[in-house]
């Protein structure tokens, strides 16, 4: 099962190496990773998607807590969250296909951020499924390149 973990860490040199090292050493695979600053200076947030059952997750969480620079570990599994990824996709396009691609971009509320006579760069944000679906729809036109960020999540304010 996939789990999304969010780690609040002290923003010290080497902290990412420590976390990556811990995961590889203990055999936990990182599916997705996003690292950035937070609203608090000196603190960073690391959002990780990992695979494993409850027992594995419990161990990952505890092992992560053992790192001196890890302050908080949140498991967002089953918690209502807003989740986002961002992708930049370079797709082949000429006059004959441009209109159809623009239609897709509108349907997915993506946007075209660069145009040339041979291709377009499209920016799309959303959860993983949406980005996967968008990519699938573009495939027939020929995807030349794709860059995708790790997932970031935020807990929803209203608890149902």
């Amino acid at each position: 099962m996939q789990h999304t973990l969010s780690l609040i860490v002290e923003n010290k040199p080497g902290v990412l190496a420590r976390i990556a090292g811990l995961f590889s050493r203990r055999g936990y695979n990182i599916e997705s990773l996003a690292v950035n600053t937070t609203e608090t200076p000196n603190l960073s947030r690391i959002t990780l998607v990992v695979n494993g059952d409850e027992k594995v997750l419990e161990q990952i969480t505890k092992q992560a807590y053992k790192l001196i620079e890890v302050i908080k570990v949140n498991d967002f599994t089953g918690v209502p969250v807003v989740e986002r990824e961002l992708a930049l996709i370079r797709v082949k396009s000429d006059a004959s296909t441009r209109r159809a691609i623009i239609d897709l971009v509108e349907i997915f509320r993506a946007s075209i951020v660069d145009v040339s006579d041979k291709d377009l760069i499209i920016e799309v944000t959303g959860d993983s499924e949406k980005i996967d679906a968008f990519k699938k729809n573009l495939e027939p036109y020929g995807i030349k390149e794709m860059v995708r960020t790790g997932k970031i999540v935020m807990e929803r304010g209203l608890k149902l």
Partner: protein
Amino acid sequence: MQMTVAEAIIKYMQEEEGVEILFGYPGGAVIGFYDALYNSTLKHVLVRHEQGAAHAADGYARSTGKVGVCVATSGPGATNLVTGIATAYMDSTPIIAITGQVRTSAIGKDSFQEVDTRGITMPITKHNYLLKDPGEALRIFKEAFYIAKTGRKGPVLIDIPADVFSAKIEYIVPAKVELLGYRPNYEPHPLQLRKAVQLIKESERPIILAGGGVIASDASAELIKFAEKINTPVVTTLMGKGSIPEDHDLCCGFIGMHGAAYANYAINESDLIIAIGVRFSDRSTGKVETFAPGAKIIHIDIDPAEIGKNVSVDIPIVADAKRALEKLYEMVEPKHNPIWWEKIKEWKAKYPLRYRWDDDEIVPQYVIEKIYEKTKGEAIVVTEVGQNQMWAAQFYKVKRPRQFITSGGLGTMGFGFPASIGAKIGNKDKIVIDIAGDGSIQMNIQELATASAEKLPVKIFVLNNSCLGMVRQWQELFYGKRYACTLLDVAPDFEKLADAYGAYGRRVTKIDELEDAIEWALNINDAPVIVDIKVKREANVFPMIPAGGSIDKMMID
């Protein structure tokens, strides 16, 4: 007051942390540190290999309960410490490793003697630092010592570039340590304690499993009081040896691959394991799926990550062993468990630790018994790794915590002798012996020079079976007696070797020379001694539960 970083950290270690001794080896990147040491009152022991420094600091820490400190230069100096740091990490001993690094401006350029020491030691330290900003030196030192000696103890490394040692700073020690992500929990949760007490009350076949954590938390007295109140047998792990006197009525020896049969039977047939400061390592449990199948488990440990890691636990208690045991002692009602004790006494009578006698050759177990006798069970026993280690554990019954010192988790050959140097320095009034193998002793033999220079009368007893006995035993039992690369037919003359290093040496080949040689060694006070005892090559360690096996696979002898 202005001073260099080197001066400041020496002052800090002496005045604030009570450090009395460093074990180290100089080099280009730490020359500034050694220069500050030149005018200092802090004692430094010059080892002959950095691995020896780490093990000596470790042996000092294990035998005294204080923090051990070792020092090495950058590059090869730091990498030579690695085995010693990993050894300390696996057994949770508090040491500080100070390493030199290339100048700040040279970092990252594959400079002479540059390695990424912080990167290399990340997975084998509790925490580590690269001290780049001289102004951070005292904060980092304070944190490092705090981290090493609190919570689950462990090694902390501080890597210091050469130019930082000589940078000038103001000597201001931060008032307190502020670590947002490090708050070890010492107090047991009252609700969990109540649940534990209930389980104890209901159990018919309870057993206490005491590990190294009991010793680390100085909880031996509390353990004994608690065990006596509920009249419950105590088994230990290898690391827990000494947490209860082994001649105590409640003590049932140590469990695991080479533990006493009665200890393994007792834990496997129990209906409740009260595990304190253990990590259920594979060498202790054998096959986890079949370990103590009928037992509920109460697991007390300071490290939450140990709970549920290897075995499923019924009552987790994250706490310091001492405090948890104090509380449990107050809360439990006395118990007697007479039927259970019948059973245990039966096992003890039926399966005592024993060995096969040989009329022609000296048997190693007998040697340990004799050393035990001659030292009246009072010596600090340090071991190497292999059969020698297991025979020492089986046949030297210790009386107190910190009396049995062994590399349990990493199983580091070459640990024993330098660790015994550290132990002797920390325990001048006690006899310190190293039970060694002919293989292991050669891994850090150069430390004879250190022990001679320091006039340390550490007593090395080599159980010389002319082979890498433990591996040979596996080959005999599981690999059709194909002794690939385990027979040490060419060995040094240990008598001459001792002599060459300014130590005393003596060889024992006949059983009637043994007692005399032991007494002779014990009476030497001014230099290290090696007693090279030729023992039977084919002697094996039994009982044995093969790796990953269950108790029904136990070979008694």
